[in-house]
């Protein structure tokens, strides 16, 4: 018989978001368990380098910053796709969240008084830090922000935040069940009460009963071949939500590409490189971003820079290489001292993986899949649509303060801010709840998973998990990338439908015993392809360009028809997702307008004739 574990709170995920929520419920006295595919500290949050946004306004270039400015940047960054109520709540809470982290032990870089040089657009400028601000948390420049607002610890921000968070979780007595993968949710159609999970040490199944369940399983970047994400970012949390047939995913088509993934390898070098003054160069070693974006140049938002880079490569200015064309990132002028301290991870990545010395050589880069704005749709309290007792936070969620494009530094901030807010909402829920675990449903779910495993090992399927996954990743790269169009998207959709059908007859090449990776993938694959189908269908239907979603055949942002959020659901036994829409925001503190970067026309909400408006 499988092991059965009962708890108050089950967090699926032990990255920053999962652990921050867990700390909140544990502090309130509830038994709390986090599941994770890897030891908590190896979660993808650890890979974030650049920093976390919070409007503290401590440093010279951040003077006058406050949550209002942060809010305006975030709404513009989202291309008016975000939920403004949530964005407001987020910006107001971020300063508290970051100070709490300072109290818990994160060694944030601090203001050093006096005059100091900095680079922007390849030129050197000077600034003076006030002596009265000495020792307060400082910030660096990031794309799409009016002020320097991104707080950091060198370029290991995610690492220090996650280690501090995990320290706090250890102190709070939270149980982390690592190497444990949630494979199905337990629910009765209205209420979620736990999950079935697979132990990745032994391969055995476990039932977790819980009064409340949180999805904090991170992004699903691995539906793309070229991604900066860890290999574990396979969207397991979103997929098991989709499997319920009830829970909805929001804005799945909103996929962010980051301008500076290295070639080859797709490892990210932080936006801090450009924030600190690095520049992009083309095949002639010339700057080009200022031509496309005079105001913001290299520091326009990510979606904009990624598109401009792609356009520039298409204009014949890319650098040829055995791995395809790329551009250059130049940080050499920042100097050895700066690079060896504040951009040290970048230095290590360049030397270890590329054999490039960033102090004297150029770094080969190109836009690479980076972040999923979409995810489990929740209300502003973090409650998932569809099932009571189910919550979501972090990259796995579509709480929706990112809309169609997330600003750099806003995701780390989201994990901890949402962690506080959603954590409180879990506490309120747990206080009002008594347990009602349906063992019949649990055993049946468990048998289903067991049956799936049995069929994979002993059945008569023909398809191989690894090759299907590779095909899916290629389809996504080709058809659902930075620029999208009707033909590419509909081809991709048809091919994904075929892959979805083929994924029903997988067969393992190995025996599937113990910590078997092939079995993990085989169990994930259907979910992965379903997520890919949601992304592709959402993109195909959305006949406009907004934030990271760029349709070549519909280049304008169409507020008249598309100021809405896509909701995807997967009815049980269906072979395709169902789409629905809801207004992007209930509150419009800042009415839709021009972002001030990125160009492009807007069909406004009050225009009546599309043709006229786009002319």
């Amino acid at each position, binding site marked *: 018989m499988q092991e059965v574990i009962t708890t108050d709170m089950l967090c699926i995920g032990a990255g920053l978001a999962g652990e921050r929520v867990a700390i909140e419920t544990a502090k309130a006295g509830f038994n709390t368990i986090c599941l994770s595919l890897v*030891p908590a500290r190896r979660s993808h949050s650890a890979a974030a380098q650049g920093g976390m946004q919070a409007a503290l306004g401590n440093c010279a270039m951040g003077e006058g910053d406050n949550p209002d400015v942060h809010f305006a940047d975030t709404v513009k960054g989202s291309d008016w796709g975000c939920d403004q109520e949530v964005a407001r709540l987020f910006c107001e809470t971020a300063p508290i969240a970051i100070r709490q982290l300072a109290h818990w032990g994160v060694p944030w870089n601090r203001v050093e008084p006096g005059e100091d040089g900095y680079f922007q657009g390849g030129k050197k400028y000077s600034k003076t830090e006030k002596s009265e601000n000495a020792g307060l948390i400082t910030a660096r420049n990031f794309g799409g922000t009016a002020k320097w607002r991104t707080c950091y610890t060198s370029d290991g921000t995610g690492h220090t935040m996650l280690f501090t968070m995990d320290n706090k979780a250890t102190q709070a007595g939270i149980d982390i069940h690592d190497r444990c993968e949630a494979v199905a949710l337990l629910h009765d159609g209205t209420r979620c009460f736990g999950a079935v999970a697979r132990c990745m040490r*032994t391969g055995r199944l476990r039932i977790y009963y819980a009064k409340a369940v949180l999805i904090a399983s991170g992004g699903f970047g691995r539906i793309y071949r070229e991604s900066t994400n860890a290999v574990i970012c396979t969207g397991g949390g979103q997929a098991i939500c989709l499997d319920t047939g009830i829970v909805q995913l929001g804005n799945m088509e909103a996929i962010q590409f980051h301008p500076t993934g290295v070639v080859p390898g797709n490892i990210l070098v932080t936006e801090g490189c450009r924030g600190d003054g690095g520049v992009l160069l083309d095949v002639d070693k010339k700057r080009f971003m200022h031509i496309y974006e005079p105001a913001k140049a290299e520091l326009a938002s990510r979606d904009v820079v990624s598109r401009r880079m792609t356009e520039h490569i298409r204009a014949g200015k890319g650098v040829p290489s055995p791995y395809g064309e790329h551009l250059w990132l130049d940080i050499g002028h920042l100097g050895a001292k700066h690079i060896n301290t504040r951009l040290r991870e970048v230095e290590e990545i360049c030397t*270890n993986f590329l054999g490039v010395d960033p102090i004297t050589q150029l770094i080969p880069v190109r836009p690479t899949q980076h972040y999923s704005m979409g995810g489990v749709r929740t209300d502003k309290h973090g409650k998932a649509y569809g099932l009571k007792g189910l919550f979501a936070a972090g990259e796995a969620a579509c709480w929706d303060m990112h809309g169609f494009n997330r600003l750099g530094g806003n995701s780390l901030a989201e994990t901890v801010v949402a962690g506080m807010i959603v954590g409180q909402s879990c506490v309120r829920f747990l206080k009002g709840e008594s347990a009602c675990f349906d063992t019949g449903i649990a055993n049946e779910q468990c048998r289903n998973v067991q049956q799936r495993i049995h069929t994979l090992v002993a059945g008569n399927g023909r398809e191989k998990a690894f090759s299907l996954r590779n095909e899916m990743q290629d389809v996504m790269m080709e058809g659902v990338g930075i620029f999208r169009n009707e033909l590419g998207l509909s081809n991709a959709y048809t091919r994904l439908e075929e892959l979805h059908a083929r994924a029903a007859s997988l067969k393992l*090449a190995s025996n599937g015993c113990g910590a078997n*990776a092939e079995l993990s993938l085989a169990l994930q694959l259907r979910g992965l392809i379903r997520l890919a189908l949601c992304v592709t269908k959402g993109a195909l239907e959305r006949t406009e360009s907004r934030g990271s979603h760029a349709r070549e055949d519909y280049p304008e942002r169409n507020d008249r028809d598309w100021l809405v959020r896509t909701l995807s659901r997967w009815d049980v036994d269906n072979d395709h997702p169902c789409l629905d829409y809801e207004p992007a925001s209930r509150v419009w503190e800042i009415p839709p307008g021009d972002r001030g970067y990125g160009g492009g026309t807007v069909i406004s909400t009050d225009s009546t004739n599309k043709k006229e408006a786009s002319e």
Partner: protein
Amino acid sequence: MNRNLYFNILRYDPEQPDIEPYMQSYLLKETERMTLFIALNRLREEQDASLKFDFCCRAGICGACAMVINGRPGLACHTQTKDLPAIINLLPLPFFKLIGDLSVDTGIWFREMNRQVESWIHTKEVFDPQASEQRMDNSTAEQIYELERCIECGCCLAACGTARMREDFLGAAGLNRIGRFLLDPRDQRNEQDFFQLIGSDRGIFGCMGLLACEDVCPKHLPLQDQLGFIRRKMGLRALHNLFKR
């Protein structure tokens, strides 16, 4: 380039204890800029789907992929095959519990270590959400970060003579962790408190100072300085305790 690479990999699955550990050989054509991450994944996808090994960030950041590469503990993801001879021997890290083939359970060990050294800020101050943050010198922040860069990969323990002999040895990673909190002005523990944690053979006095740990640390943490610093502090504390009695 285009060499034939011969991989000898330790195979063992604790779930199938009847099968004794053995070395298995694989042949793979080298490609440009191949890393062990690329190579092992190709072996698993193309030749042997049952191979067990761990990668997560594949970027030298998370510490998941440490293994013994031609006799030396290191991160597989940032090891390029061009820097290795054509015969590549891969073993799991010693010291940690084996999960299968090249995969070991560093997670459980490090969580226990963190619990034992109480790897969190000890303070009586209560967080005030309305107040501004406590000030800190930037140089202090940077010094803390310098020690906090440990990715818990386990290489230092795998290379450590003492760790081979004492299962309960905290190792360079554990002692470095103490150093990190000793340095942090926010932590109100005093030397005596730290002495309680590490003033024994399973702590600082178990270390033989041969410094294999620093040699293999992929993050180049200043382990030698740290161990020396802590040994001096704790040595003085031990004397102090002796005289107090």
